[in-house]
């Protein structure tokens, strides 16, 4: 895959380049400041962009804004946004234009190389990768909520689904069969009053829309 990286910290930037090239991806360009990001993306049209949220010159949320701007100009461009901390609001903004090809993860997750690469590939293929911490925040709701009627196992399945995992991964993580996964997910959709969806992005979208609604 061809990747464009936007990261201002030289150590992390080099680490990321090393990681990606060592597994056979090509780093088309690196951007070290916010204003460089969009031109680099437009010029190189990568398979996926990996963006840091906080970048110079303002050290605020330049990376996130660049990601949103890029999604507007190149709706098909998959972006994976990394940050030292996650905010539900940022997730909502990123997912606002659709959950397809969007990732939002804590930088810490890069350390789990296999999982990180898996998330990157998922996003590049048009899937979703949402950090477990964001999902936990989304699932923390007041009482009197249909979410409370879920069993712990169904809740776990919903959590993994919202992260953007497919059935096989959910089954492997929960150590249950594919049939059991389908059953749990069917129950979740029933209890939350969502129309049944096949696997894939539409399912993630439905779940995230439900959770975002609050």
């Amino acid at each position, binding site marked *: 895959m061809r990747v464009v990286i936007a990261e201002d910290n030289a150590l992390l930037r080099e680490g990321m380049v090393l990681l990606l090239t060592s597994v056979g991806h090509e780093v088309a360009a690196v951007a070290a400041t916010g204003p460089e990001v969009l031109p680099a993306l437009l010029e190189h049209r990568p398979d996926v962009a990996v963006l840091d949220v*906080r970048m110079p010159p303002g050290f605020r949320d330049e990376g996130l804004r660049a990601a949103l701007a890029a999604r507007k100009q190149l709706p098909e461009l998959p972006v994976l946004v990394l940050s030292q901390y996650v905010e*539900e609001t940022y997730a909502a903004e990123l997912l606002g234009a659709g959950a397809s090809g969007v990732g939002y993860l804590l930088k*810490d997750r890069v350390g789990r190389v296999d999982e990180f690469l898996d998330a990157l590939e998922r996003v590049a293929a048009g899937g979703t990768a949402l950090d477990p911490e964001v999902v936990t925040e989304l699932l923390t709701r007041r009482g009197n909520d249909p979410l409370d009627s879920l069993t712990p196992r169904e809740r776990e399945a919903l959590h993994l689904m919202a992260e953007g995992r497919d059935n096989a991964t959910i089954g492997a993580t929960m150590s249950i069969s594919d049939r059991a996964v389908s059953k749990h997910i069917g129950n979740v959709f029933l209890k939350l009053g969502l129309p049944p969806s096949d696997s894939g992005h539409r399912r993630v979208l439905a779940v995230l829309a439900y959770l975002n609604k609050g």
Partner: protein
Amino acid sequence: MRDTIDRADRASMLLLMASGLSIVSYVFVGILLFALAASLIVVGLGMLPETVLLLRKLAGIKRRQVGEWSGRRIPEAYTPLTGTLVERVRKAVKDPGTYRDLRWLVLHFFYGLLLLYVALPLWVIGALVDGVWCGLLRRRAVVLPLIVRLAALDARWSRALLKPSPDAERNAELAERVEELTVTRAGAVAAHGAELRRIERDLHDGTQARLVSLSMRVGLARRAYDKQVAAAPGAEAPDPDVVRRLLDDAQDQAEEALTELRHVVRGIHPPILTDRGLVGAVRALAASSGLEVAVRDDGVEGGPRAPAAVEAAAYFVMAEALTNAAKHSGARRAEVELARAATGLRILVRDEGRGGADESGGTGLLGMRRRVAALDGTMEVVSPAGGPTLIGVELPCVW
């Protein structure tokens, strides 16, 4: 009629006390003259500051009497008489308040007595005239209210003579403010110190310890690797699973250290404040609160930003208030208001829950109050049983 008599009564009391003071001041002038004469032969110099203090006390009595009668305090502003004897004498002589008091003393000696002399016969006349007027003819009293007029005259003259010069008054106000600031500053410094110690402890006991333990595991894994490489064929090499376990542990420790650091950072200054400013950060809070929150902003967004400490305190207070509302109030809706005032930042959090928030109950409200007080701010909680709950906070700052 009863009212009229009561008022005349109180007015007479003031006049009576005024005349009493007049007589005392007569004596006092004697003391003063003696002190001045004694000062001429140096020995009596020590008497001078004491005499001035006595004079201040007399004026103080009059200030209090007039203040109580009129319901309006007369401010007091003197140079404190401190230091060596020479300094005390110098300050006593240089203080303009001394001369204002003396002027009052002499004038009051006359008008204090005079007003009483006029008031006394009025009582006799009033008893007769007003007795007939009101008692028999049902008209309004005319004479007794004159006594009240006399007392008002005494109050007015005394106020004019005893109030400090504008300069002295401003100085007194400033001195009061300095004292107030000294107290709140000490509080703020103490709170800041406690905060630093908490951060230090969090980093020391948590993150640092984890990084040490992580480094240790990496070191052990490296040692095991070296041994494996160096091991002669056939000799016993370390179990690769052991190395793998060490590395797994090391990564776990690194992740936990990162999670802890994130918590510490959030506790110092929430990153979203940097990214989005106070209003943006509060909108994010509202979105993740689980409540339907209306955020209203009155001039905070877009303008110059409040100091970081003020923004952080405001953010924590609102986060805590919304958490409480979501957890305890039973409300589904809440309102948050931020307003830029000339003197600082005003915030208001209101929920439509069941109310009855108790400050002694949890540490939440107490913690909020401490955070606000550390910045010289004020916090008000209104939460009657049955709701709604309203928390208002004002944090002073210069924009």
